[in-house]
């Protein structure tokens, strides 16, 4: 039986989540906290395995709470109603989150991910560190870091260092500045496209999603091709040509 603590300033939100968890999942709710202060003492007392953490709270928010904790030895699932910016940061750091109102299927998926995961506190802490760094650096675009999960583990990569994503069947190759090899991830190229939609990346071709900051040259042709900073030449799909040129000239 896993021990969990729910942190949410809204009583309804806390109780609803507790009810579903109690009814459908073998997770024991050790405490419910309405603010960061309560949460800190609850965590100290119960040493939970999992923390459901609401982001928007009056006073200190969820991130402030994490920053305040000296030792984190639990997993975190964020809960939020609507905060585009925070969700983006959470996605970059490969942490889990649930949108309110909470969907039972999504909750189940998140719990399953938590259970099936090999507990590696160092990794979790690294992810949290990345998240807090990304948040504190403000929305400075490509300065933020993103977690790239390849066969060997997690890699914390600055977005501006990513040159291109290259779709290879159900895998995606991530080419990064200063790396001899590229990362092979099982994430689809479209998932990265969704994640980085506001970051000056562009899908020039079914197989290529590129960082516009790394485009060295565009050579006109039928669709033309781009030369990237790593010297790679990538074809631009014919029907993406017009939009791509417009983007480049901005």
């Amino acid at each position, binding site marked *: 039986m896993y021990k969990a603590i729910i942190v949410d300033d809204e009583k309804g939100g806390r109780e609803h989540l507790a009810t579903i968890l109690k009814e459908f999942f073998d997770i024991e709710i050790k405490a419910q906290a309405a603010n960061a202060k309560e949460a800190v003492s609850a965590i100290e007392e119960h040493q939970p395995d999992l923390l459901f953490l609401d982001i928007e709270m009056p006073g200190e928010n969820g991130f402030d709470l994490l920053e305040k904790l000296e030792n984190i030895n639990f997993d975190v699932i964020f809960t939020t109603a*609507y905060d585009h910016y925070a969700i983006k940061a959470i996605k970059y750091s490969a942490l889990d989150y649930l949108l309110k*109102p909470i969907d039972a299927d999504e909750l189940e998926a998140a719990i399953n991910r938590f259970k099936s995961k090999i507990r590696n506190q160092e990794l979790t802490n690294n992810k949290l560190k990345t998240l807090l760094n990304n948040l504190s650096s403000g929305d400075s675009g490509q300065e933020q870091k993103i977690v790239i999960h390849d066969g060997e583990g997690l890699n914390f990569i600055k977005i501006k260092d990513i040159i291109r994503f290259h779709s290879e069947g159900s895998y995606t190759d991530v080419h990064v500045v200063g790396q001899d090899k590229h990362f092979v991830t099982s994430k689809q190229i*479209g998932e990265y496209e969704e994640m980085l939609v506001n970051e000056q990346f562009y899908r020039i071709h*079914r197989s290529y999603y590129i960082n516009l900051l790394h485009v060295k040259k565009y050579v006109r042709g039928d669709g033309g091709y781009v030369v990237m900073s790593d010297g790679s030449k990538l074809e631009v799909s014919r029907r993406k040509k017009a939009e791509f040129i417009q983007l480049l000239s901005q």
Partner: protein
Amino acid sequence: MLIVKQKITTFHQKFGGLLRLIIIIQFVIFSEVLFAQNPSFSNYKSSTSPYLQFNDIVEHKNKMLFISSEGVFELKNKNLSKIIIEENLSKFIKTPKNLYVWSIYGEIFEIKNNQLVPFPFNKLVQKRVENKIINSVIFADSAFYISTIVGSALIQIDLKTETISNLKLSPYPYFVVKFDGKLISGNNQNTSKNELFVNTNSNSFTIPLAEAAGNSRTNIVQLQDKTYLFSKQHEVIRFNNATFLNRIFVEKNVEFIFQDSQGKIWFALNSGGIISYADGSLKETNITRYLGNQTVISVAEDAKGNLWFGTSGNGVFKLEKELENIDANSTITYSSPAIFSSTEIENEKVQSKFILKNLPTDQQTEKPINSKTIRTDRVRQDSLPPSVFINSVKINGKDTTTLSHYELSHENNAIEFNISGISNSPSGIQYKYMLEGFDKEWIYTVNTSIYYTSLAPGSYTFKVFAMNDSGIWSTVPSVISFTIQPPFYMSAWFLLTLVFGVIIIGFLIYFLIQKQNQLKNKQIEEQKQRALASELQALRSQMNPHFIFNTLNSIQNFISKNESKDASIYLSKFAKLMRATLSNTKRQRISLKDEIETLTLYLELEQLRLNNKFSYEILVDETIDTQYEQVPSMLIQPYVENAIWHGISHKEGNGIIRIQFLPENEHLLKCVIEDNGIGRENAIKLKKNTTSPSFGMNITKERVELLNSLNGNQLSVKINDLKINNQPAGTRVELYVPI
């Protein structure tokens, strides 16, 4: 020697009569005779292959050895006989104990008992050399150094530590030598700069070169006075540790530089024989030439002080040390009495003048004129500078009177100069000329006709010097200057007018285009505004209050019936749809996958609201990559809403909605929305009686038009009324969406 004698005779027979008349010319012929015969040389060839090229010469264990393209030869009974068969050998390396030889591939062999013993590291070295051309291999302080012409290989093979390493002295070493414990390499770091970069253990410096370095083979030698001679093509420079000393140009490419034990410098030339200078100062007054225009590749000196010259195609020549100083006998042997008969005194006078003038300082003991100290090189030297003339000037092929300056019109731009030089020795005259305003450097030639064509308008000065066969240049050049006038259309006033005209027209066009652009931008801006407004309206239609509140009402119904699980499910679906709608409105285009997800949520909530009055299916052709293809956001939903609200909701019995996505062509996606509702005609009739809002369709129609005008897309909509037995049986909407 017999052949040489015959040659003199025929020469004399031909011109003898004339010679007797003019003394000075007779002397010229006298010099020519001596020059041609090279009395002190012995010539050795291989009886089996007489036309070989001899790359290098060395004395080893009292034997003379030679490297040719066929292998190593030995001098035996005045014949060169092959002792080692191996092609591709380049040069010898002599160490105090052993004799080595290196190949053009960078392999090193030791010569032991007339056999080549390959070094064990040859394979490794070849890998590092990578097919580059070897410039030189030297041995110093128990290490070999291999340098290549192109590429950065400077490979050190240290025999003591048995290691092979690439030295990084400079990126493109020309040569590497080790003298006095200093490792010296030179390179041309920047070919456009034409400079030699010299890098020693202690310092580095650059020396400007007259010509681009290119990839030519280079030579370097350290002279007895601790200065260095470096040659590349026909340029030779002398420098010491950090100072450039002097530079000369030899008429032909230098193949090899050698300093003999007496301090003389020998240049082996390509098609130019050999030149010897008295010392490293390379003064043109101290030149001696031998071996005509043969190509000499190698020079060596044996223990007795004899000099050996390897040629390309003419075997090996030996210059005996004792014979180098010609004696009275040899003068007699090679001078036909007929030549001397009437002019002997004059000759002696001329000779004596030469001897006195050119005697080296260390030999300035007074001796009788015809004694054994008369040196051949002094005697035959022609130290009078030649004169040079421009005989004729042809302009566009027509002869003209030779003037010192010409004014030419632009079409007279092909000019031919005919030049001649007059010297004591009429043969072997070479010229250097330059057309200032056209040529950037001196051009060396033996041709007497120099032709320039298609010269651009401008001022030019043609200068020419002549050099006699002793390498002495005429003191004064012959000079002709000329100016080619530009044609009228190149003249200043015309060009000025043209430039102004072009600028004014350019400005006019620029302003016109600017104005057009402003207008166009304004229009686009307006359209964008309208598009934005219509997007907002589309959002409002999707967030149709009727739909929202009815959905909420249905959810409330679950709650009141205590069906909390269903309530929860539909509530989260509703939340998801709201969220998706909000985020989709931020983007002009969304992926088809997102659009289908949104449609599914919408249909599920409508099913709930209408109490499962209809079923639906969404079919996507398997060739479509829904994650990659993008469609305009909020475009399809209004048609689905229309099908439900106006087609299905009024129908008695169950309805079906089918949405299909099919590829139409490379640029168009076909989206079909079919319902089996009451049809448009009936819906219009019903509408008259209701107040229900149906503005979703109008908004969408406007959006389609706007999207087309903004992007030039071919977005189009086709609506068909479906009929069964002539009765309305639903509506089919076909949307053609650009992707």
